[in-house]
């Protein structure tokens, strides 16, 4: 089958991928949700996330779990991969990273509901698992957000 390059995507299908090693939200790209009348979950799991401690410069590692209910726009996964790699030399606390990613994705897609969970590897015997969540303000999705916020750790999602 012949490979076709979609002009809407600069990363997906490109024969020469450029990797950025400094925070680069401009890498994120979207495509249109063709089932906007439906409510459905999209889960994106990234278990190679890495950034730096802003104080010691030591590397941090995490599995990131992004769950969302799409509205019109959906994030293109290769652009998401490149965006997440761009944190490699970024010095930020775990809580800041998760909130920053959540806000970038919310701004990009305006989803009905979105949550970003960071399962960071332990440092000094303590592992930090921040969760960002937001909704589009509609009653149905506010209710989902409230329920999931209150029940955050009852059924933790697992990878692998």
């Amino acid at each position, binding site marked *: 089958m012949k490979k076709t390059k979609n002009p809407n995507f600069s990363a997906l299908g490109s024969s020469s*991928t*450029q*990797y950025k090693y400094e925070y680069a939200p401009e890498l994120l790209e979207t495509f249109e949700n063709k089932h906007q009348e439906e409510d459905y979950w999209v889960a994106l799991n990234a*278990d*190679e996330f*890495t950034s730096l401690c802003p104080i010691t410069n*030591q*590397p941090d*590692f995490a*599995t990131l779990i992004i769950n969302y209910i799409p509205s019109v726009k959906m994030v293109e996964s290769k652009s998401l991969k490149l965006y997440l*790699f761009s944190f*490699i030399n970024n010095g930020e606390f775990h809580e800041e990273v998760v909130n920053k990613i959540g806000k970038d994705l919310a701004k990009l897609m305006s989803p009905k509901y979105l949550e970003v969970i960071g*399962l*960071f*590897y*332990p440092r000094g015997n303590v*592992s930090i*698992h921040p969760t960002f969540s937001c909704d589009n303000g509609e009653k149905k999705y506010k209710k989902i957000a409230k329920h999931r916020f209150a029940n955050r*750790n009852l059924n*933790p999602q*697992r*990878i*692998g």
Partner: protein
Amino acid sequence: MTFRKIKIKENSNVSYSSPELLFLGESGQPYRGTLYVSFRSQEETFDLRDFKKYLTSLRQRTFNAEDIAYEIFSTIAKNISVKKLGVIVDLSARGGIQQRVGFGTEFAPIKKANIFQLG
């Protein structure tokens, strides 16, 4: 890179592992992997803090994925005298292909469960 030497009993079977190995592939893409090191001591090992700093330094360096086990093997071998040194790196899948590379003495790495997940 120089590691400080630590004196230990001879013929101790020593294994180290780290799920936090990161380096840059030839394309510039970051590669994640789990590192396993095994050897029998000749009365010495290396300082683990120095070893951690060395592993951290690899995230700025570029390698063919197949050469990463040799890089770590040769650095250890330059720093301490050991017997039966072996290095294995399990890399995260790329394009659906899982890759394991090893150098030196073969051994069976013991995998630990994910320590950061809730039980």
